[in-house]
């Protein structure tokens, strides 16, 4: 008992791995919907990404001469890999998840010093790199799993992933299509109205694309559970959804022919995944209460700007990365008033 141990002398059973595992649990419903609507491709991508993430992490930690076991068990690499896999098209060759996650782990996480030190969200860095480097593979989204359509089973997807071979009699034309966001964007560019664009899209749901709306709703519920469990706070998701929703509402009201409805934007693409799971990554997000509101709102507004005026159909990754850059400044200017100090 010679070691000086500073107070406090008790701790509740909280840990980084508990935080990370809670995030994983909260993702499960959305992932199930993803597989339900777009086939088992997600699970194949996810398995490759997880394995590659853990191996890369272990390898780099060995290079850095850091303890490997606690870092692997903290669950942060697992969460990065899962979030990253969720951004990929279900029908992708094996090297897409592999290259993306290895790049993310090395360049976005460990070159900055590992867990807690990275300014940019690693999953989004991996995704952005792939999108820029391999646009063709990254924009080939699967058609929904519907009885009237040709859908791929487990083995088909696995074979495609590792050999690139598709079942005979099918081609990418039949198996993949643009996402609702992508389709809407191109149609508007062709001077179509939003209504016409949506009418021409084969698989629209009640408020957004077929399947997409359910995936978004379930991610929203998972995120709400995280808020209830106090793993994340409400500030970033609320601010981001408000930023996106309000911007979309103003645009929609001013020019309904060329701007899709706020609901379409809120339940399309990676909106809910981004709001509750990606923007809330504590390491790369703002930490002060006011800062989180600004950070979230900034992401929301940027999403709309890039979705409408930008060159990419979805914009969560770029918006998050852009706001990641602003975090130190936001945190600096939004410090709370310290007890006993004037406001």
């Amino acid at each position: 008992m010679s070691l000086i141990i500073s107070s406090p002398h008790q701790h509740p059973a909280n840990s980084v791995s508990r935080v990370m595992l809670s995030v994983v649990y909260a993702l499960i419903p959305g992932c199930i919907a993803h597989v339900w609507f777009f086939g088992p491709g997600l699970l194949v991508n996810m398995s490759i990404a997880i394995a590659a993430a853990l191996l890369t992490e272990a390898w780099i930690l060995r290079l850095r001469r850091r303890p490997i076991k606690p870092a692997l068990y903290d669950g942060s690499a697992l969460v990065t890999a899962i979030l990253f896999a969720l951004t990929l098209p279900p029908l992708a060759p094996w090297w897409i998840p592999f290259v993306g996650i290895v790049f993310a782990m090395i360049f976005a996480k460990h070159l900055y010093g590992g867990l807690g030190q990275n300014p940019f969200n690693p999953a989004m860095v991996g995704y952005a790199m792939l999108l820029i480097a391999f646009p063709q593979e990254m924009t080939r989204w699967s058609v929904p799993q519907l009885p009237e359509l040709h859908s791929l089973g487990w083995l088909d997807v696995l074979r495609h992933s590792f050999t690139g071979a598709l079942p005979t009699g099918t081609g990418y034309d039949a198996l993949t299509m643009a996402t609702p966001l992508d389709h809407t964007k191109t149609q508007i560019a062709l001077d179509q109205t939003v209504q016409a664009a949506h009418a021409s899209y084969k698989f629209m749901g009640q408020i957004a694309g077929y399947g997409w709306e359910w995936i978004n709703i379930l991610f929203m519920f998972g995120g709400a559970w995280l808020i209830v469990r106090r793993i994340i706070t409400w500030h970033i998701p609320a601010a981001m959804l408000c930023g996106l929703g309000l911007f979309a509402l103003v645009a929609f009201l001013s020019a309904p022919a060329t701007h899709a409805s706020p609901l379409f934007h809120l339940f399309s693409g990676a909106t809910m995944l981004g709001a509750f799971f990606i923007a809330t990554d504590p390491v790369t997000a703002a930490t002060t209460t006011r800062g989180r509101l600004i950070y979230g709102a900034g992401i929301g507004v940027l999403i709309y700007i890039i979705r409408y005026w930008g060159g990419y159909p979805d914009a969560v990754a770029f918006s998050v990365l852009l706001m990641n850059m602003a975090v130190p400044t936001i945190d600096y200017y939004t410090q709370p008033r310290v007890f006993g100090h004037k406001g």
Partner: protein
Amino acid sequence: MMPMKLGQFHGGLRLPGCKADSMLSPVTAAPIPPRLYVPLKQHIGAAAEPVIRIGDHVLKGQLLADSDSHVTAPVHAPTSGTVVEIVEHTVPHPSGMTAPCIVIETDGKDEWRPNLSAHSQYHLLSPNELRQIIRDAGIVGLGGAGFPAFLKLNPGQDKLVETLILNGAECEPYITCDAMLMQERARDILDGLHIMRHAVQARHCIIGIEDHNSAAIAAMQAALSKEEQKHISIIAIPTRYPTGGEKQLIKVLTNKEVPSHKLPIDIGVVCHNVGTAFAVADAVLRGIPLISRYVTITGGAIKTPQNLITQFGTPMAFLLDHCGLQRDKLSRLLMGGPMMGLQISDLQTPVIKTSNCLLALGPGEAGDTHPEMPCIRCGECARVCPAQLLPQQLYWWSRARDFDKVQDYNLFDCIECGCCAWVCPSHIPLVQYYRFAKTEIWQQERDKRKSDHARDRHEFRQLRMERKKREDEERKRKKKELLQRANAGKDETKKSAIDEALARVQAKKAQQQTESRNTDNLTPAQQKQIEAADARRANQTPADTTGDEGSEA
């Protein structure tokens, strides 16, 4: 009781109380150990110096040590016995360091010093006299810090005390000594409060007690008379750690914030612990100096947790054994609570004035020993910080040893309550980092003062040397000039020198003529005296009419 809207401080924690175990039995006096190790410093300030000699027989309550310093507190004999030595002995301190202790071999008679001066009519005494009594009784803040109470009872001449607060919050888990004191000695606490109120001339008083502590609230309410209710309110405050922190309690009770780097008195508030009030009552009304206190002995390694009236200097091991310490179960011994307590590694460390609790944590009770993980910036620490700091920024800059930056983030507003470290999912010992940074900054400031002083001295010396050099040069230059002039026109100079000398002599002569004589500036009285003397002289020698008036010297 007047209705009052309670304030609220940011953050804080709801902690498991763990208090019931030590409140089962009434408080009894701890047995007297064979030897007491009474430290000369049990407070904030200068250590007291012994006034007894080795071999002296001392009586209970007899003065053992005192000091001339302003910030200090005397130390008294907790029981009767013989002073056998004054040695370096382990004292309660984070480093487990040793300090001088007076060792008393107790005689078991517990014999009081005669002539204890009780002042039942305390209101006839002036505040200054009261403070002197409280000082001489060695009373320090018993809530934990141990700041001499008489100083805190001295608001200063120009400061009005609006509110005197008694802190009965006891927000740390496990600790129950104040709760038991309020349950058992409510009347004495109120008496002490009256005396304190008289000493600071406070307008009204508030006693703040956490709302889970209903027995203490009830006991205090019952002791409070109708008359007293006019100026004393007992307020149940929400149970939330660290509501017993002075600034937090003031915020809750008065909704006023003590400004950063200021004292409560600057907003008209004085705050004392209930235990201190009890000690004040003992000192003033009964003449009993501070020689013992209520101490909670509890924790998973203790068979019969309880509160004991313990004499200062009692070795902790003696007290713990009395309560059935199971040494094989002891994982960590703390003085104080689990949030801010001090780890004690030597069981022979004595109980001192600030020892409110001995917490012998059992297996698994000391929390998990997770390794420290990297900070993931989750912000939980900022959410719970009662000072509304950004603990993670403080951690970051402390770790980077950027002590300017860490002060920009208001390190010195941190009260070290431990909330941030408690919630940290990465198990970072945050408070340790802050203490490290504070200590380093203090050290740097000391070094800076030292070097400033040295620099000032050096610069002054430099200045002195330069001045001397300048003066020397000046002198040399003048000499040279004079010499040059002399060489240039020697005769002329000689002549002029003679002329000058002549002129000087003449001037001197002239001056002597006009030089004032002692008859020049006379007062009328002196003039009269002279005239009288002249008249006498004239009478004696009427024929002698001397014209020389100023001849008498």
